[in-house]
């Protein structure tokens, strides 16, 4: 869209806001789009502090990571009447020249022509992205507009009927296009990470780019997928890497993109804390710990509490030494004003299976042994659940939430950490290990309901044979050095854990003929509902108290976590199936 077209559209918007009637197709689309901008109020960063209600303003909906919505219009008494409100298929990459990019227009049949795609990016446009367009992250819902993302793409969608308002496409230089976990929003501005390591800022009203900044070295094989998290005047951005490179979290200025601070999850200089847990400083500086998922934020302590990734080399760990390899596979608490770490708790000392602890932690204020405490809950990819004090990092509870996980010794150590059994690292002739690489849980976010006191997490029980292939004592790089061959016999569950004890209160085994499918992320509501996607292609609703299934719709394999929002008095539940969004509502 040219500047001239946008200026024309903006003038038209004022008229459109006064005109109820619809006009010719193309005009209507533009006017309708700008009419919704007229209703768009900037997102005051202070509103990010509100608990999750009508809007969904950040990755987890609010800073707690609970994914617990206060909305009750849809509830246990009426969920069986929940019905389809709209379907929206997102357009893909535009054809050369920056226009088109859609077959049958998603707005087709609604009298709306699609707006032109806005194209940015540093690439030359000749990179093949084989990964199918798929929404695998959170969708923002603010003042009647949804902001949706996939690698190289951002869209604004009308929250009431699913029609496209704008589409931004980033021409990539390359990089792993495995997923994009969502957008950040501050005032009128959106933030998106790209697989080739830029942070792009868009004007939320128009989709036009404000600026983009390089956030990591593409040459060092970083790839960036995570959802930026806005806290005050900080945009917190993590990134990913599967070679041997240090993990970090950066804080950027939301106005300019200038760097405010950079926190490394591994020691980078002589004398840095934790360096003694590595064979050498060089090993630490190549030690991984990528921060590839958003964390949660405690406004009282100014602590951003976030998980770190696996150490590298991931499997052939001898070059890392025998130590714990701090601060990989840990929950770390970082002061957002300074970028300094306040505390850490390592959930997998010296991981040897690429099972990161990046899963978004959940912050809960609740009773623990008679005292109200500020807690953080996490279920780790390694198969273990933890309750910690989130002010100090003090360990309170650990438990194993998978029956099959066999990589650790039976007893936890005195810090409540699982202790690795080196025989289950790998073997030349194969070691039978549970879990397979995907882990007992993964990025799909968990939820917590204060009504039940239960932590809900999608879990998988699986096995793989881990064969050592690198016999050079220097080990391999990155994820190399082993061959992991899965045994297609995995089982998928929705698991409800009591944060006070770590005990499983209920566990629903999804019946399926599909193999090796993971479950989706989770949403819970004050309507006493728990939504998720099953491994057979259903969006389902449970009773969060006991795991009874209450409702389902066979829309296809859900690829993100279900979410909810309210516009003009109507509550919607949305879920993505690849490139298509489905919205459900009640008509009363």
């Amino acid at each position, binding site marked *: 869209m040219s500047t001239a077209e946008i200026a024309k559209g903006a003038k038209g918007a004022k008229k459109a806001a006064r005109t109820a009637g619809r006009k010719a197709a193309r005009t209507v689309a533009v006017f309708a789009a700008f009419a919704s901008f007229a209703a768009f109020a900037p997102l005051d960063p202070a509103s990010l502090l509100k608990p999750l209600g009508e809007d969904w303003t950040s990755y987890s909906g609010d800073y707690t990571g609970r994914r617990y919505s206060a909305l009750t219009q849809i509830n246990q008494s009426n969920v069986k009447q929940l019905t389809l409100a709209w379907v929206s298929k997102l357009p893909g990459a535009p054809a050369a020249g920056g226009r088109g990019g859609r077959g049958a227009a998603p707005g087709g049949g609604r009298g709306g022509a699609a707006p032109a795609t806005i194209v940015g990016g540093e690439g030359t446009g000749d*990179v*093949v992205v*084989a*990964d*199918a367009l*798929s929404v*695998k992250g959170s969708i923002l819902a603010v003042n009647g507009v949804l902001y949706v993302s996939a690698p190289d793409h951002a869209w604004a969608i009308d929250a009431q009927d699913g029609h496209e308002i704008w589409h931004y496409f980033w021409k990539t*230089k*390359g*990089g*792993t296009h*495995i*997923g994009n976990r969502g957008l950040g929003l501050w005032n009128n501005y959106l933030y998106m990470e790209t697989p080739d390591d830029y942070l792009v800022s868009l004007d939320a009203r128009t989709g036009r780019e404000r600026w983009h900044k390089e956030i990591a*070295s593409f040459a060092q*094989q970083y790839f960036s997928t995570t959802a930026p998290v806005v806290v005050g005047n900080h945009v917190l951005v993590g990134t990913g890497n*599967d*070679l041997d490179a240090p993990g970090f979290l950066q804080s950027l200025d939301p106005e300019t993109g200038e760097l405010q601070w950079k926190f490394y999850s591994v020691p980078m200089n002589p004398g840095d804390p934790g360096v003694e847990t590595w064979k050498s400083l060089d090993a630490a*500086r*190549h030690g991984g710990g990528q921060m590839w998922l958003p964390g949660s934020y405690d406004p009282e302590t100014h602590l951003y509490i976030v998980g770190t990734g696996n150490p590298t080399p*991931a499997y052939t760990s001898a070059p890392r030494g025998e130590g714990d390899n701090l601060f990989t596979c840990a929950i770390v608490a970082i002061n957002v004003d300074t970028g300094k770490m306040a505390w850490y708790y390592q959930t997998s000392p010296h991981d040897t299976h690429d099972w990161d602890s990046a899963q978004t932690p959940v912050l809960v204020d609740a009773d623990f042994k008679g005292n109200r405490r500020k807690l953080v809950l996490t279920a780790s990819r390694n198969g273990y659940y933890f309750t910690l004090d989130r002010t100090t990092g003090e360990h309170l509870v650990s438990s194993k939430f998978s029956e*099959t996980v066999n990589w650790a010794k039976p007893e936890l150590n005195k810090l409540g950490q699982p202790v690795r059994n080196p025989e289950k690292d790998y073997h*030349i*002739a*194969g070691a039978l290990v*549970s879990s*397979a*690489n*995907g882990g007992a849980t*993964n990025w799909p976010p968990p939820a917590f309901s204060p009504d039940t006191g239960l932590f809900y997490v999608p879990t*998988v029980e699986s096995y793989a*044979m881990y*064969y*050592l292939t690198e*016999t050079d004592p*220097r080990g*391999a*790089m*990155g*994820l*190399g050095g082993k061959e*992991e*061959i899965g*045994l*297609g*016999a995995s089982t998928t569950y929705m698991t409800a854990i009591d944060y006070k004890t770590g005990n499983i209160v209920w566990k629903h085994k999804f*019946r*399926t*003929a599909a193999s*090796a*499918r*993971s479950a989706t992320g989770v949403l819970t509501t004050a309507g006493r509902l728990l939504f998720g996607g*099953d491994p*057979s*292609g259903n969006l389902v609703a449970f009773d969060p108290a006991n795991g009874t*299934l209450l409702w*389902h719709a066979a829309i*296809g*394999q859900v690829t993100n976590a279900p979410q909810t929002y309210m516009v003009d008095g109507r509550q919607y539940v949305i879920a993505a199936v*690849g*490139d298509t969004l489905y919205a459900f509502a009640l008509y009363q």
Partner: protein
Amino acid sequence: MAPTVKDDGQRRTRGTRRTNIVSAISACSALIVVTLMPLAAQRRDFPTRPPGDPAAIERGRALYSVNCTFCHGADIRGGDSGPSLLRSAMVLDDQNGELIGPVVRGGRVDRGMPKFSFTDEQLQDVVAFLHSFTAAGYDVSRMKPPSILVGDAVAGEAFFRRTCASCHSPTGDLRGYAAKFADEKQLQQTWLLPGSGGRGAAPPRIDLPPTTVTVTLASGQKVEGVLDRIDDFVVSLTEKDGTHRSFRTTGAAPKVEIHDPLQPHKDLLRAYSDADIHNVTAYLATLK
């Protein structure tokens, strides 16, 4: 309606498989790819460098072997006293020697690296040599581990008689089992759980009976057939005559019983020790 799912549980596996392919392409046939596809779109998960001048790389290799190999290893993956240059952030970020050059000429005296007074041309040759390696977790040329046949075939036979012989026989269904496999890992994966394969050549065809299901209706009538699909809400099957039937399963009836011929194999995954597996594989490898 339901697109193929990208299972993020396989996130890293997928990524590394692709790395494998990309590095293989860039290492072996980058020249061909670039020559044959100058205008065609290319996959580029990670940055790839255009191939260097072979003569410069050879000159660089000679200089490197004399001056650098002792500390950094002939394959630049590190030696006794020097770090790996293959994963070095500085080497990865370097384009044409602008980052490598100052380090080579200035040394890193505090870390024990002396200064080298190469000419500009020599420096460019060493840089070309360093950039001729592909940095990736997987390098196909390195994936040649020793044989996985490390178990005790006698103990494996005893285990087989105790655990497997009620369904399988070395002179019956498993006659000539080992002769079907070119790859030892495929042999092992296939007996652990048929269909779990492994990489390389396609595994031999194993004829398995299908999973069947018995649905007992409220009336007591039983409907049996091959399982098509099942979830928490509906089960569907194909009867002997080809008829497709499906049943809602959310109430108290019908009763659904699944008969998975591989269930004993799946259950045994919780029971094996690694030694059991290696021993059985060593035994089955004798069934030629």
